[in-house]
């Protein structure tokens, strides 16, 4: 492993942020409504300079009402799911762990749907319920996934898959029986979708979501060097003075919170939490001090890119972004699984 210097950390993050910027510009440019690059730049400049009266109202609506909120949501969801994935992989010491594969996303979705039917008009209640669903599911999967007191990789994955299908069955049951619910919209949301409009005050709403994200991702980041030690062996880490139980608790709560956050705004988008940490590990190594921030930016890139493709491939209609990530992620999952079995 190459030693991690602050310089290396910063340069890796800067490179990834540069790629994210390019993807964002690309995403801002493309859509059913065509706006030239020049118009986009002019609109952005006018907005920054406060000359809103000079922006045509349709440009204003498309860029600031539709595309930018969607990109911001993509960044939030991609970063949350990827950091949660990296966290679960360390917690369970299993590189195949991912919020979607482990059923955690389904648990969060169940929580969100329950809160929608019990308290329909309180948005933060939905995030809270999704967090509880995610935390409950990962606890159940953790205990179901043990064999002879030890975490067993394939038992854990099976426990996750079974939990996901069990929770999906409950969700289908609720969606069919709850009267007055918008079925098609929910089915779309369950597949993972970024098209839902933000509530009346998008600025404040995004502020809250990103605040929660930075708290949870920051909490995982504080445990990064401990995670490195734990991954080489829990006993050794303990001897070196790491509070293994406390680190695991922090990662467990934070990763569940990140999953709940992502699912409550975008439904279950699969495989990002698996794919992104792996790609980052392959390129930059598995030092968690670098992996966590790089994974966050990488996840943002992946989702914004996937969502742009989802908007483009069947234009003027849209695919749910979850379909795009599953198309890319499921084959990678199979590949990793087979490589481990060898």
């Amino acid at each position, binding site marked *: 492993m190459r030693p991690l210097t602050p310089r290396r950390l910063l340069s890796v993050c800067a490179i990834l942020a540069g790629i994210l910027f390019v993807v964002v510009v690309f995403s801002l440019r493309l859509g059913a409504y065509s706006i030239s690059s020049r118009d986009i730049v002019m609109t952005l400049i006018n907005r920054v300079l406060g000359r809103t009266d000079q922006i045509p*109202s349709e440009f204003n609506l498309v860029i600031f009402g539709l595309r930018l909120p969607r990109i911001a949501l993509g960044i939030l969801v991609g970063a949350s799911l990827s950091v949660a994935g990296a966290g679960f992989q360390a917690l369970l010491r299993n590189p195949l762990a991912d919020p979607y594969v482990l059923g955690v996303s389904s648990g969060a979705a169940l929580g969100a749907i329950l809160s929608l039917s019990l308290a329909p008009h309180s948005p933060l209640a939905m995030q809270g319920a999704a967090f509880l669903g995610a935390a409950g599911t990962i606890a159940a999967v953790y205990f179901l996934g043990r064999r002879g007191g030890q975490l067993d990789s394939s038992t854990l994955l099976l426990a996750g898959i079974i939990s996901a299908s069990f929770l999906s069955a409950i969700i289908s049951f609720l969606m069919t029986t709850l009267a007055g619910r918008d079925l098609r919209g929910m089915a779309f949301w369950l597949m993972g979708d970024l098209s839902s409009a933000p509530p009346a005050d998008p600025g404040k709403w995004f502020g809250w979501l990103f605040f929660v994200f930075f708290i949870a991702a920051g909490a995982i980041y504080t445990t990064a060097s401990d995670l490195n030690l734990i991954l080489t062996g829990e006993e050794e880490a303990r001897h070196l003075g790491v509070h293994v139980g406390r680190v695991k608790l922090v990662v467990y709560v934070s990763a569940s919170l990140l999953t709940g956050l992502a699912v409550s705004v975008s439904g279950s988008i699969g495989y990002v939490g698996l794919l992104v940490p792996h790609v980052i590990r392959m390129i930059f190594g598995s030092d968690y001090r670098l992996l966590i921030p790089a994974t966050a930016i990488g996840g943002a890139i992946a989702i914004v890119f996937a969502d742009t493709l989802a908007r483009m491939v069947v234009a003027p209609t*849209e695919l749910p972004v979850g379909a795009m990530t599953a198309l890319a992620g499921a084959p990678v999952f199979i590949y990793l699984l087979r490589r481990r079995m060898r």
Partner: protein
Amino acid sequence: MQFRKSCPSILLLALALTLSAAALQANQAPATPPAAAPRASAQVTDELGRKVNVPAVVRRIVSLAPNLTETVYALGLQERLAGDTDYCDYPREAAAKPHVGGPMSPSIEAIVALQPDLVLATTSINRVETVDALAHVGIPVYVSDPHTVEGLLAGIRKIADITGASAAGKSMVDDLQTRLDSLHAALHGRTPSRVLFIVWSSPLISVGQGTFIADALKLAGAESVVKSTKNWPEMSMEEVVRLRPEYLIFARGHDDPDAGSLEALRKKPVYRDLKPVRDGHVVSVSDSIDRPAPRMIDAIEALAHELHPEAFAALHPDSATQQWDFPALLYTGAYATASAKGGYSCGL
């Protein structure tokens, strides 16, 4: 055939639920089947071109869609309606009939247990598997497939003919046609309004050119901005901005009471910045517009009055009361409550 497709898991669940409902209803069916005396029957061709043997005297009808239930009532055949679906809510008495499940996944057993001699189905909401399964057990199924309002009227005539209600069918359809003709005359020379018809708001679904709704819009002096060849195209919000509709038209009812409420839309991000919402050009029309049944003509008239009030000024000098004349209520700006949700203005 354009039978609607849906999420398989929902379907499976619905199937399981209807199967259990069927088990309940099967218990209530008479224990002994009636004497199977051969009866005279006539071969008719349904709207998909299928040949169906329908008894000369139809005594027990099962309707598999809300619009067909409405049609049966409008023809005065309600005594012979043996059963309908969970969605059949108009007229209100229809909800009290024995139900065979939802239109997408009715219980074949429950239908058989009702011993119908004719089942009415439609391509717009039923599935081909249901029709095939019923045909397989020897129950005649007449499938309607309206793509235009003219086709709808012809279908009503046909259903009236095979159920022995020809006279009622003819007088009702003639009456509806007269109303459409006078509407056409009143709208003569008016430029059609460019509208976006919203079937469903999340995800946003509109209507394609081949649907009876697109045809109904034309008759109401409107033109859908969506030129899709798909029947129920899913739209992105950007596409809506690009198409620049003058009016947004919502079908009221379903599950979303807010749909089409101008006040609600003015608070909703993105929607509040759309030109039709800023201009107050939001029309909420009775959900009978997406049910091809006689009541659809009411909705067409109401929509025409809303989009082209000046065309009817001479007919209704007191324009203030005009909005209240129609069972299908509208509001642009002012919210009118659903007080006039009345019965048929024709046929009954």
